[in-house]
């Protein structure tokens, strides 16, 4: 399914329609959007190099990592990038986004035509033209198209307002030379409205859901991070496609992140759901709360002082025959005036039977029985 996102991005949009766009959503508890971006970058790069893609170049705009990080990553994947590479351009908004550094950074030595420093992130119009220029330098002015990748829009959103950022993304999508576009977003850092807006302007949304218990309602995102325990690095990968016909398709997969990167596998079983309840951190060493099962079982226990007559109302026998008595226990009770032990011997369990001394005593009377005593 991660494959199908990649294929959609690789194939791009039809002529005259908006380029397909993907939002990769991460949270603080599942901060793996970078891994997904890297996965897509590696796949897109190799398909561009193999000539299988509709786009012939890739413009990468880096905000959260230095360009050398990505070049190093591609190298690890066996894709060598040199300054003469004609298929990739990096726009570096990471090293000096606000122009605080006076001299140009000496950190990136590899290929100055490959990596271009962008010093004014707040001016989105300039950023837009820089991106398009970078693409045009690579694939030329004609109808050849290129893919645009933005590694994190969080930094953009911090410097500019949401309408401006979504405007930039829409402008990029509608540019005739952009074949597809993707960006990643940490949803915990912004208002829900921002997230929803960016989701809305994208055709695909990939959501990384951690395997942590979220049954306690909305809690602090930071607490979530420490609740994931040994399952940090695993989770569900949900993708929502907006199909061309207007239908929406949602697919889910499992992801697992390790040193080598991110791996996707089909959802195995309910095992992962069970995992959410186990916890590595003993918050308290003794249990203060009951689970649902424990609670139900606790309620089933009948305490010794509770009546065990299974729904029958309890009556105190007042010596007179009632309708029910006549049927069941009338005979032994009438036969003797003493305390009966028949109930015990007949195997019914413990029972307290009360006999009134005489008929003129009212059952449960409020009278003080000792009021005739002369003290």
């Amino acid at each position, binding site marked *: 399914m991660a494959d199908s996102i990649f294929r959609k991005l690789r194939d791009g949009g039809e002529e005259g329609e908006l380029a397909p766009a993907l939002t990769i959503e991460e949270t*603080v508890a599942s*901060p793996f959007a*970078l*891994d997904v971006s890297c996965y897509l970058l590696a796949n897109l790069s190799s398909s561009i190099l193999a000539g299988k893609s509709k786009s012939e170049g890739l413009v990468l705009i880096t905000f959260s*990592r*230095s360009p*050398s*990080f990505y070049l190093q990553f591609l190298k690890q994947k066996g894709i060598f990038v040199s300054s003469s590479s004609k298929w990739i351009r990096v726009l570096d908004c*990471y*090293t*000096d*986004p*606000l122009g*605080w*550094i*006076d001299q140009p*950074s000496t*950190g990136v030595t590899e290929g100055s035509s490959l990596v271009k420093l962008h010093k004014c992130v707040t001016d989105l119009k300039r950023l837009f033209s820089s991106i398009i220029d970078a693409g045009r330098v690579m694939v030329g002015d004609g109808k050849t198209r290129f893919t645009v990748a933005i590694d994190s829009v*969080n*930094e953009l959103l*911090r410097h500019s307002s949401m309408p401006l950022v979504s405007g930039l993304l829409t402008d990029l999508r509608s540019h005739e030379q952009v074949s597809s576009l993707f960006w990643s977003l*940490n949803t*915990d*850092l*912004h*208002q829900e409205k921002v997230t929803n807006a960016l989701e809305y302007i994208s055709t695909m949304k990939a959501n990384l859901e951690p395997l942590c218990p979220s049954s306690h309602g909305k809690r*602090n*995102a*930071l607490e979530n*991070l*420490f609740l*994931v*325990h*040994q399952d*940090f*690095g695993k989770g569900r990968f949900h993708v929502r496609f907006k199909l061309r016909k207007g239908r929406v398709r949602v697919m889910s997969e499992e992801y697992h*992140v*390790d*040193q080598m990167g991110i791996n996707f596998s089909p959802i195995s079983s309910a095992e992962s759901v069970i995992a959410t309840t186990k916890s*590595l*951190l*003993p*918050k*308290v*060493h*003794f249990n203060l709360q009951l689970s649902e099962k424990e609670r139900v079982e606790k309620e089933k226990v009948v305490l010794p002082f509770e009546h065990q007559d299974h729904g029958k109302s309890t009556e105190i026998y007042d010596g007179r025959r009632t309708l029910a008595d006549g049927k069941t226990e009338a005979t032994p009770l009438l036969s003797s005036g003493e305390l009966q032990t028949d109930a015990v011997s007949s195997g019914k369990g413990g029972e307290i039977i009360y006999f009134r001394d005489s008929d003129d005593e009212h059952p449960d009377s409020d009278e003080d029985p000792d009021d005739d005593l002369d003290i």
Partner: protein
Amino acid sequence: MDRSVNLLDVALGFGEHQVSDQSPLSGKVVVIEDCVETSGSFVLHQIMKRLLSPPSSSHSLIFLAFARPFSHYDRILRKLGCNLAAQKANNRLVFVDMLMMKCSDGEEDNVSAVAKLFREIQATVRKLRSVTDTNITVMVDDMSLLEISATNSHHVLDFLHYCHTLTSDSNCSLVILNHEDIYLSLERPAYLLQMVCLADVVIKAEPLASGLANDVHGQLTVLNKGISSNSRNKLQNFQFRIKENGIEYFYPGSRT
């Protein structure tokens, strides 16, 4: 005791890398989150000592002190067996006293103040680099004080971002102490979350959930989440007891 490697060192990767000169923290961001009940500054002191004491002679430290004066750290580190004044004279410690940092009213001044601070750090890093090829660590005690004094937390985040560029450009490491409880009342503490997002290692110091105890002073949770780290996605939890001349770390229930 002080030569041996304790649980925190292992969690940070100091145990394995003693052979090579490369610090296990180089190129990484370590964020220490603490709260009023359990201060995390001892973690800072321990990392300081680990970096400056003899076996790792190739470390330099740039220390931004917002919270305490030099004499405070000097006294504590002396108890741990490390002479800060001597390290300062050796140029292995660059102590930047930020206690007197002036908070200006104007937005513009604030930006330029943080930018100026960053330029200062960058110049120091370059200077240290030009002398020897050392591992440089930038330490901040603590970032929330800067955040409070800044009129806009965005400037602090910008500052953090620029400090982060040092980790990838110059392979510095960044160790930041931050108070969590200032932001806990906020529904979406963007500043705190952003900091955690940047971090490769998050160390959280908190009191025991079961309340105060005589011989356990709190627990540490160390989460390695950095993409370049060896023990990626590893979460460790252990308890500690602060003693006069050091800290004792142990796994829950394993203390004799």
